[in-house]
């Protein structure tokens, strides 16, 4: 698949995203939800981890990123839309790769903005005696936030392609992220730390204990995402459209 044939497919998928208000709205909601919920948590003097006190809201910001990835794919499963898309780009692998790229790139950009905004807001609202995150943590937190949100959006996109349903994907992911992971995640150590959100959010902390670390954690999330994307790609390839 050369760049000459991939670029038009990517261009088309990007047009589809930018011409839907709901998609732009979901992207805008990522930093808004993250910063707002971090600020709320800060009022209650929530987390004593210097970095994560700014990133507490990512739990909610990621819901917007997931909604973005889900709806970008689920729109194709409405009446006849996928047939039209695949008639225009009959190489299904190419089409799905273009779709995922058009989801991943804007989420990554928005993730960088989210990371910087959350850290800036966190620094501005924390008291004068609070522990300040050093520049290296800022850099790690910002890139980590962008990578993490991108992986979660792609995980959602892959799952949506597997289930051929946005409602199905969201009804698995949202309760999982907001309830199950919270409950299970408080049980320290063990397999719970390898859940996609738990592992991926280590990078948003100043300190962590044991395995996985910040980057290995993101790698664990990337494995989950790769599995979902591979399953989704397989479903797109083998099914009659």
């Amino acid at each position, binding site marked *: 698949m050369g760049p000459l*044939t991939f670029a*038009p*497919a990517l*261009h*088309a*998928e990007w*047009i*589809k995203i930018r*011409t*839907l*208000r*709901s998609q732009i709205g979901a992207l805008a909601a990522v930093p808004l939800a993250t910063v707002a919920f971090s600020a709320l948590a800060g009022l209650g003097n929530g987390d004593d981890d210097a970095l994560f006190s700014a990133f507490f809201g990512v739990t909610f910001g990621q819901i917007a990123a997931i909604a973005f990835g889900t709806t970008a794919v689920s*729109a194709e499963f*409405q*009446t*006849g*839309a996928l*047939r*039209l*898309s*695949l*008639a*225009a*780009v*009959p*190489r299904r692998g190419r089409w799905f790769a273009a779709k995922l790229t058009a989801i991943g790139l804007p989420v990554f950009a928005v993730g960088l903005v989210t990371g910087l905004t959350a850290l800036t807001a966190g620094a501005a609202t924390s008291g004068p005696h609070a522990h300040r995150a050093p520049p290296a943590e800022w850099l790690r937190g910002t890139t980590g936030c962008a990578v993490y949100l991108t992986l979660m959006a792609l995980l959602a996109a892959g799952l949506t392609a597997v289930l051929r349903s946005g409602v199905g994907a969201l009804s698995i992911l949202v309760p999982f992220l907001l309830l199950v992971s919270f409950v299970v995640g408080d049980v320290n150590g063990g397999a719970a730390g390898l859940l996609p959100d738990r592992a991926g959010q280590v990078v948003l902390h100043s300190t962590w204990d044991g395995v996985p670390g910040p980057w290995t954690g993101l790698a664990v999330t990337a494995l989950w995402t790769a599995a979902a994307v591979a399953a989704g790609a397989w479903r797109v390839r083998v099914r*009659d*459209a």
Partner: protein
Amino acid sequence: MTSIDVHELTKEYGPRRAVDRITFQVLPGRVTGFLGPNGAGKSTTLRLLLGLDRPTSGAATLAGRPYVTLTDPLRHVGALLDAQAAHGSRTGRDHLLALAASNRLPVRRVDQVLEEAGLAPAARRRVRTYSLGMRQRLGIAAALLGDPAVVLLDEPANGLDPEGIVWIRGLLRRLAGEGRTVLVSSHLMNETASFADHLVVLGRGRLLADTALRDFIDARVHPGVRIRTTDPTALKNVLARHGHDPVHHPDGHWTVRHTRVDDIGPLVSAAGVPLLELSAQEGTLEQAYLALTAADAEFASRPHEEV
């Protein structure tokens, strides 16, 4: 020259055979009507042609190539499968812009086809505000986007108002006149008769006919003559003398089957029968189609019999 070649095409969904070893060719320069009742396999055949469904066996090619091997396929083949395919929250123009980008077509083409489909005033409105007829026009605009040599339209007249139906008829004739290959599926007989030159007829997944429209009708429906007179006795006498058997209808007119105006006119005129009406009754596509499917139903009701 781009023809569509369907060879021994078969598609099974579980135990059900939606398309059963059909073979036919669609040639350029004419409109081919693709007929059959709902569920006959027309839409499945179109999806197989576009590589959207995979055949169980057999092949469908465009100019000798499978659809999925075409580079920028919209430049070769334009298809309308489902008028509901456009996202309701997107504008008609944005919908076409995405399609155009995927096949490296210039933005100018988007505005041209919107104009051609009569959608220019609604181009920047969201598709959900469109009527069914407007969505149909948007789907046809999408099919024309790449100026393709092959045009496949599934039930294009669905939801169109009378003006729209006249428009699509003219459009199909024009596309064929420009030398394009035009395949139009429909279950509406009179509509199909108004634009088709050639017919491919499916029934329960099998090919029932592949023939010129005129031949299709003439082979199955015999022409007749319709007569109204103030003197039925004189009419019956003169026709009986020449071996015709006129049939009386409750509303007062008579028909003579298997004959033509050119034969009957001079007879009744010479006999001095007072005439109120003398007209030719051409067979219609609907009659011919029903005659065909009745024969097919009879055939199908005898099981265990191979072709």
